[in-house]
């Protein structure tokens, strides 16, 4: 009997995943393997001759000072962006998880931020943070802070990108947490309240643990995306000033389509791939200890 159950579960399990797996395999996994092959070639995308060069691209990567800078920028960016977006998103989701007037409008406003095109986002932030004409310097002047160079400053530009992208992704965080908050039954929070727990304690002891699967999801998803930051950099600073906002994917893009070093770009992509895998595995391992699934 038991063996029958196990083998039918094998069969059903595979039956359920196969359609999705085939699509993702064909369009996701196959190109990735292909790109791995390309990383061992010298490929300028122009002539069809793509000779194998062994690990030359990877050795070049190890000695490229811009790659070292890009790694640093990518990591700094990720460490600031991911917790930032999650915290803001959680706060707003909690605020929006109630049936007060206009709540649909507030939620739609959060969604609008992810719907808006990146180019509009970039233009508005370039304006807000303009050293001479921007509103942010204007507000800072109220506090006696001298005008900052922001996107013209190698030391500040990356942080402006962090703020811009947190703004852009907050809506996503809100939407995910809102969905997850529906899984927090009111009975439990009410029971905690009756037991004398204050609202913050109820939140910390009851709600947060129940939200942990969503938190893990967001942490993993946002990290994977943060480590591959590209659009906002491409549309605002183009990696500048002086490589201050050059992150790994932007650098590999310039290597592929401006410098015609596609093999090298593939190698950078693979290096990043390994970094992302390692970080994601760590997140899942840590997550397993802190995530609470009601099943």
């Amino acid at each position: 009997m038991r063996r029958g159950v196990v083998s039918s579960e094998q069969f059903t399990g595979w039956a359920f995943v196969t359609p999705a797996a085939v699509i993702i395999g064909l369009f996701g996994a196959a190109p990735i393997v292909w790109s791995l092959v390309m990383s061992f070639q010298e490929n300028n995308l122009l002539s069809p001759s793509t000779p194998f060069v062994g690990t030359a691209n990877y050795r070049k990567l190890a000695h490229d000072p811009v790659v070292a800078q890009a790694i640093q920028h990518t990591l700094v960016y990720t460490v600031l962006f991911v917790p930032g977006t999650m915290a803001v998103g959680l706060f707003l989701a909690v605020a929006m998880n109630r049936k007060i007037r206009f709540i649909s409008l507030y939620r739609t406003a959060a969604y609008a931020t992810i719907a808006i095109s990146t180019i509009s986002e970039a233009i508005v932030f370039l304006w807000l943070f303009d050293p001479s004409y921007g509103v942010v310097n204007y507000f800072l002047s109220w506090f006696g802070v001298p005008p900052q160079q922001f996107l013209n400053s190698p030391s500040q530009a990356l942080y402006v990108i962090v703020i811009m992208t947190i703004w852009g992704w907050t809506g996503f965080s809100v939407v995910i947490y809102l969905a997850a908050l529906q899984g927090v039954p009111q009975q439990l929070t009410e029971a905690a309240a009756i037991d004398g727990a204050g609202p913050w304690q109820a939140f910390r002891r009851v709600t947060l643990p129940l939200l942990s699967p969503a938190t893990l999801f967001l942490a993993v998803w946002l990290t994977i995306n943060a480590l591959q930051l590209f659009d906002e950099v491409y549309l605002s600073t183009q990696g500048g000033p002086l490589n201050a906002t050059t992150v790994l994917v932007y650098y590999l893009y310039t290597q592929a389509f401006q410098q015609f070093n596609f093999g090298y770009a593939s190698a950078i992509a693979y290096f990043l791939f390994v970094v992302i895998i390692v970080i994601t595995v760590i997140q899942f391992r840590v997550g397993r200890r802190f995530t609470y699934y009601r099943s």
Partner: protein
Amino acid sequence: MAAFSKAYLAGLLAVLTGAAVLAGCGTDSTSSGGGGGAQTIQIWEGYTAAEAKAFSHLVSEYEAQHPGQKVSPLFVNNDNTLQKVLTAVRGGSPPDIAYLYGSWAPNVAQIPQVANLTQVVQRPGVNWNDFWTGERAVATVNGKVIGIPAVVDNLAVVYNKTLFAKAGLQPPGPDWTWQEFMADAKKLTNPAIKQFGTAYVTPGTEDTVWHWEPLLWEAGGQLLTPDNKKAAFDSAAGLASLNTLRTMAVTDKSMYLDPSDSTYSNLFNSGKIGMLVTGPWDLSAFPNVKYGVQVMPAYPGTTGGHQTISGPDNWVIFNNSPARVAAAEQFLLWLTAPAQVKYWAVQTGNLPSRQSVGDSAAVTQQMNAALPGVGAFIANLANVKQARPQISQYPKISTILGNMVVSVLLGKSQPQAALTAAAQQVDQALAAG
């Protein structure tokens, strides 16, 4: 919400997939030629607004005049064209014609499917020498002609007449110098009302570099040695050019630094900037100011004069089949014939890509009436004496130079140190080949 019925969903999915398939079937996959004798060629271009209208008109006119020939344009923003073309080439489906930036020419020439037009442009009636020197230089790589000029432009100084009058300054004359430019910029700068004398784009890309190169040339300098093997800009001329930029950006603070590529023109249009070094494409972005156009300044005591730089772009033909190459050649030769060049220039305000058209006073008059100041840019084409090095390592050099210029503008390094460091890197890049 009621329980999902899988049948319902599957049905909906089927209906919509069916619609998708039908919609897909409704397309004719593009250029197949044959069948009925109609030869269709596909052309990828990035024309918007007035240019798009003019191009549409020209395509219809061509098809009317040449029955059996069809031209199928596809809009691709010029910045994205390279990605799309390279992917298509790798995948075996390049377009027939693509609009490609001139700065990509030395690399594009390495694509085997790019048609060699050296013999084509020598055909009678084409008049290859009628195209400006700068254009022909950019369309030719190692003696092989790989494109037909699509556009030509150059850099000159556009200044705000009202601001000059308010500051009591004489407008720039044809013999002016960089000293005068700097002095004017300083006088036009007023931090209290956030007004700047001039502006410069600082993304560190080729845009940053090609605004600096004319200064180097005006100071009598060269970018590379004649054999293109070593850097030659670490010279007195290089130092003079960077010092000019540094004085304005760091010392006088008369220069607005724009990390984007569009803020500076809106600022000029809002009357916040006194002078800009820019090209004819920006003139239509200044509807709200009374502007004048003058040649770039010179450095006295050098041989550079009022030289300027030009950034021509190319129509490139890809070989899909001999019939399609022939059809593409026929279309491009027609498109770049004097009559069409004249129509294009007058309708869009783009500088005429042929000298015979550009030298015509009637054309200049017509264009000036539609777009004041463009005549000065046409005349300025005579100041284009040389082009950027047509070598495949140019993109690498461009990045090095971009960082050099930006570091000086931001005050992060002294001009001489920046020059020396950049020259070393350029030498390495050139040696690596």
